[in-house]
């Protein structure tokens, strides 16, 4: 004859409900993912170069024509050109003069933004994405 304590110990506790299934994300080999990511990258973005300076803030003749042209090839131009177009959009809407933004401050802001976009070498959410978004959401 078993004592009460022993009987309790032998009793198998069955769960009344099925345990809730917790979704698990199996990642597999993380190194493989990273190597695939590098392969997707079409070009190597070098940091620290292509910084814009206030001396480069000179509007070009074709700016207005290019910025309203739906077929203009933005990925083909250099990063300095992209940064300059960022400045040009503010200049064209008279926002630089209205809020008396100094060119040095704006250049620093633009360089910081470019560094942020280049940091993770994202194939899609990169500087082209920022430029086309600022230009027109429709071409994003």
């Amino acid at each position, binding site marked *: 004859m078993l004592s009460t304590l022993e009987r309790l110990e032998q009793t198998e506790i069955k769960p009344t409900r099925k345990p809730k299934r917790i979704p698990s994300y199996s990642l597999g080999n*993380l190194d493989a993912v990273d190597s695939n990511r590098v392969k997707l990258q079409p070009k190597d973005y070098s940091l620290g170069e292509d910084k814009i300076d206030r001396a480069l803030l000179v509007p070009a003749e074709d700016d207005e024509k290019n910025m309203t042209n739906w077929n203009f090839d933005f990925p083909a131009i250099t990063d300095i050109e992209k940064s300059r177009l960022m400045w040009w*959009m503010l200049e064209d*809407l008279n926002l630089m003069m209205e809020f008396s933004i100094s060119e040095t401050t704006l250049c620093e802001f633009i360089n910081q933004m470019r560094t942020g976009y280049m940091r993770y070498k994202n194939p899609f959410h990169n500087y082209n994405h920022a430029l086309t978004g600022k230009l027109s959401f429709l071409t994003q």
Partner: protein
Amino acid sequence: MYYMLKVVGYAENFSSLIQLGLLIAAYSHDVDHRGRTNAFEVASKSSLAIFYHDKSVITHFF
């Protein structure tokens, strides 16, 4: 955004402060984007996922 303001003509309806805000928001909307999904951030226990308690990590960050 520039095209909407300048060519389509929304600049007449918005004050210059709102125009500046719209342009800067469009410029910086995806800065520091990792290019990874929410599930990836949570599963890899990245600093972002820890900071935002695994809830809509990407959406909270940007």
